[in-house]
């Protein structure tokens, strides 16, 4: 049973405006007639009527204000802060809305000045008072001390990522490891329907040791990783650069890139493991907010695994995220396995693929595939039995894991001769009296608990139709029980 989310807060209705038209600021974009119509409608809607509030000075990135020092009676304050008001604030044309088209509808901008050292910069934003909403927060690392490059945010946080909205006290937070000499633009916003109340924004900075950048710091020219296992990715010294796209679902403070060549379409699994590995994200083409396919930052196994469907051949990018790049000898294992089935298999193949990838990188990784076993015959079985063969073999999908271990104990195979809608089940070398086909009898145990096989004592006699039924058994409560569907193969001999 799929977990059902609770709707614990009433969300305001969102007005969707397609303001994030790709194609601005020099990047190739896609403009459609619909996009143009929406843009015109948007401009008309945004025309400031007479008497409306004047725009705030930091309404856009060019007007970003600095964070300010503060004092306290009882001691020094190291964080910098500013209270932001949003009266008259407008959205930012051409800037991605990293939490969806309704986010960042009214925005205010701040600038965090560069530091001569690599630093962990944590930017926070929370309501000053009253409202239990969570503001939107994005951070744009600049390539240098100045600049207003807002094509791609590097960090993004809001009500979807900050925690459980029903607690009512969420704050948005973006921690990033920022290269030396890079300033950061911070965008704080409210959505359509939110009360645009004042927000207290703050930034805390922690200097980190200066370390050489690891291989794959930039996605352009990232090393290629061969499919398979045994790859090691160095993470010490990683940062977040101005080209690394934010991935709010699987956020990390820093990361490195690898490329992988996919030659066949299908379902693939990628896994990373190691204390330093925080996230794993797969991108289908040149990394950007648009091209993330799948990511992982959670799970009950030591490895982070994610499954993605490769719908085209070519180069894919993987980003291994880390939150402790200042640690010496920080590294992660990486495995890319597949394809598992065709791309049509989609999410059905995910649990098994995920477990396989996790075990490829950590043989002791526990099993997480709780699905009931569903055996399948190998494609050649029917043809071989028809030609007098005796081997019956196949595979299985679904491990019925409990406490991290598969409970699939064995497979049983029953054979019957079918006549007139009745089945004569084979016991040993003989076929019994015609009985119901619904209840298999005389099932033989097959060897194997994942791939299985058995050999019939004799070839199936000619001139009849046969039914071969396989079913899995799991060990539960100390007893063997049938589990999952019976899978039937018809053979005409």
């Amino acid at each position, binding site marked *: 049973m*799929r*977990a*059902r*989310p*609770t709707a*614990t*807060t009433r*969300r305001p209705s969102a007005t969707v405006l397609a303001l994030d038209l790709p194609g601005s600021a020099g990047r190739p974009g896609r403009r459609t007639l619909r996009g143009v119509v929406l843009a015109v409608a948007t401009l008309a809607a945004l025309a400031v009527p007479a008497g409306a509030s004047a725009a705030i000075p930091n309404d856009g990135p060019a007007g970003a204000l600095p964070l300010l020092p*503060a004092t*306290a*009676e009882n*001691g020094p*304050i*190291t*964080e910098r*802060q500013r*209270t932001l008001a949003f009266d008259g604030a407008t959205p930012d044309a051409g800037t*991605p809305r990293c*939490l*969806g*088209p309704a986010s960042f509808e009214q925005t205010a901008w701040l600038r965090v000045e560069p530091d001569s050292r690599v630093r962990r910069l944590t930017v926070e934003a*929370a309501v*000053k008072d*009253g409202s*239990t909403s969570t503001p939107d927060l994005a951070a744009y690392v600049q390539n240098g001390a100045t600049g207003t490059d807002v094509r791609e945010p590097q960090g993004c*946080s809001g*009500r*979807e*990522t*900050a*925690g*459980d*909205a*029903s*607690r*009512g*006290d969420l*704050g*948005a*937070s*973006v*921690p990033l490891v920022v290269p030396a000499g890079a300033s950061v633009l911070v965008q704080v916003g409210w959505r359509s329907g939110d009360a645009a109340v004042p927000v*207290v924004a*703050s930034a*805390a900075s922690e200097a980190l040791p200066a370390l050489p950048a690891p291989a794959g710091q930039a996605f352009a020219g990232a090393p290629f990783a061969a499919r398979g296992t045994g790859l090691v990715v160095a993470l010490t010294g990683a940062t977040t650069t101005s080209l690394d796209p934010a*991935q*709010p*679902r*699987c*956020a*990390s*403070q820093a990361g490195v890139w690898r490329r992988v060549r996919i030659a066949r379409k299908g379902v693939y699994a990628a896994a990373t493991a190691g204390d330093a590995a925080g996230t794993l994200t797969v991108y289908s083409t040149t990394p950007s*907010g648009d091209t993330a396919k*799948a990511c992982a930052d*959670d799970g009950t196994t*030591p490895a982070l695994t994610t499954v993605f469907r490769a719908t085209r051949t070519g180069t894919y990018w993987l980003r291994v995220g880390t939150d*402790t790049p200042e640690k010496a000898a920080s590294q992660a294992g990486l495995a890319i396995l597949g394809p598992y089935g065709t791309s049509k298999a989609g999410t059905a193949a995910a649990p098994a693929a995920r477990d396989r990838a996790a075990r490829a990188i950590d043989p002791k990784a526990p099993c997480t595939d*709780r699905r009931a076993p569903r055996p399948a015959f190998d494609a050649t079985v029917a043809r071989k039995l028809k030609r007098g063969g005796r081997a019956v073999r196949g595979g299985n999908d679904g491990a019925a894991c409990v*406490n*991290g271990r598969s409970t699939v104990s064995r497979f049983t195979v029953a054979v019957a001769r079918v006549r007139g809608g009745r089945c004569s089940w084979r016991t040993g070398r003989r076929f019994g009296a015609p009985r119901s086909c619904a209840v298999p009898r005389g099932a033989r145990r097959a060897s194997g608990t994942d791939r299985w096989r058995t050999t019939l004592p004799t070839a199936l006699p000619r001139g009849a139709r046969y039914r071969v039924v396989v079913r899995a058994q799991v060990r539960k409560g100390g007893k063997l029980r049938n589990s999952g569907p019976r899978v039937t193969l018809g053979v005409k001999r």
Partner: protein
Amino acid sequence: MSRISITRRELVVAGGSLAAGLALTTPAHARLLPTTRGVGRGQFLDGVASGEPSSDAVTFWGRLTTSAPRSAARLVVAEDAGLTRTVATVVVPTSAGVDHTLKARVGGLKPSQHYFYVWQSSTDVSPLGRTKTAPAADSDTPVSVAYSSCQNYSAGYFNGHRDAAAFDEIDICAFLGDYTYEYPYAEYGGAGRGPGVVDPASTDLETYRGKLRLYRADAALRELHRLHPVVHVWDDHEIADNYTDGAPSPSDLQRNAGYRASFEWLPRLAFQNDRFRLYRSLRYGKHAELFITDQRQYRSTGDPGTTMLGRPQLDWLKRGLQGSNATFKLVGNPDMIAPLGLSPLGATLATINSDQWDGYPQERAELLRHIADRGISDVVFLTGDIHLYMANDLLLDGRSVATEYIGGSVTSPGLPDLVSALGAPAIQALNTHIRYFNGIDHGWAIARVTKDELKVEFRSSDITKKDAPSRTLAAFTQPVGRNAVMQTAGVGTVGGRAAPAAARASTRSAALRTRRRKVQTAADRDLERRIGLAESAARRRRGRRSAAKGKAV
């Protein structure tokens, strides 16, 4: 104000906001957000806590120590300490934006019952916590409310909390202010825990969070949170000393940081659209209703200002007291309400402390007049702040209309011995409504309510010695309808009753493995049961479809 009612379902909370808020066809960064979230990495190094109990719901709290911007943990709630009778499991997301704290409110529970809970990440399992729901509103059950205030980490050991943790009878612990102190170590109260303690001043978000982390690392406070549900209201030191006096006012950053951190680290949910509201009432059976008042947030600036509670809160309190049919109306009162002056007329001539109700005499008079005129009987103020044990009659027109029991301070300095010896008799002589005065000892207090009477016991210990035993300092009995303090004097028993010990293991790793196994079994068992239910339902649907097809043929 129950936010989530979860029984026997595993839910990813906040999924509602994802589903409702995001256009799932949007391209760009948000595309992956709607995917279901599993547990993440992190360790449980800050204990567990629960709070805001009602007769059918409790708010659970935990915290993950992790450097990841986002993570999540599973909460498992069961009726037994062995976690074999699971009543709820839920995966709760968290992030750096809330200092990786975890909160979930679980409903559908039974009244007056203990529940046990753990949090589970992908790499750790928390200690086992215990909580208790409130009695049903029509229950005759006696109720015990523990209360304390002013726990300055520098000043000494939280022996009072260790003592309170051992009282199984407690239904709720009320922290009535000054849960943390903003000063660096030893600046106020001395170096009561010896040298070498790292405890900087709290002035911004990072340092307020660090302050709470330090306080919650105290074993006694952690144990108290582990075993009993709590409710908290702040006073001034959660932000800064008397910060409402405007001299100077704290910056937006400091005030917001203090409020945010306090909310993050305590087991309470915010009121809808009233982010920092603390004032609320908690009903405990027929005989007790606890009204928690916030005497800082709504104060007008000044020393004193013009209002202490703010008009909306004052009206709320007046309405609540008048409308309550509980036998005893207990008011969680951070600041002393009885007059404390240097003249026979008390506050009217020479007030000692204008930061407490003495600085707001009109507001105090309005409240007491309301109690008197409406005939609201058995209103009892449970008070903190002033670092003294006191028991006071609240007089209006010469008649005691309510009572106040000030439960000392957990550790914050009271009066020096000499001052107390000289001053206490004089103070009591000049303020005859003060029936008991002790400015030296430190500890906590417990109020026990039955249908016939309220009993209050003051407990204290030597805070200079870690784990020193506690003793009863004084005890009071207030029969229903009396509205005046009556001391049943004498020093009571030494030490407290033993509580169920936390799981002890020869090594942390062995205990962790055991906890992991239990939690995983409980979660798996619950998930298996739900999967079984889903499969049964699917089979029934297939059967109905087959039957329908058969009929059609």
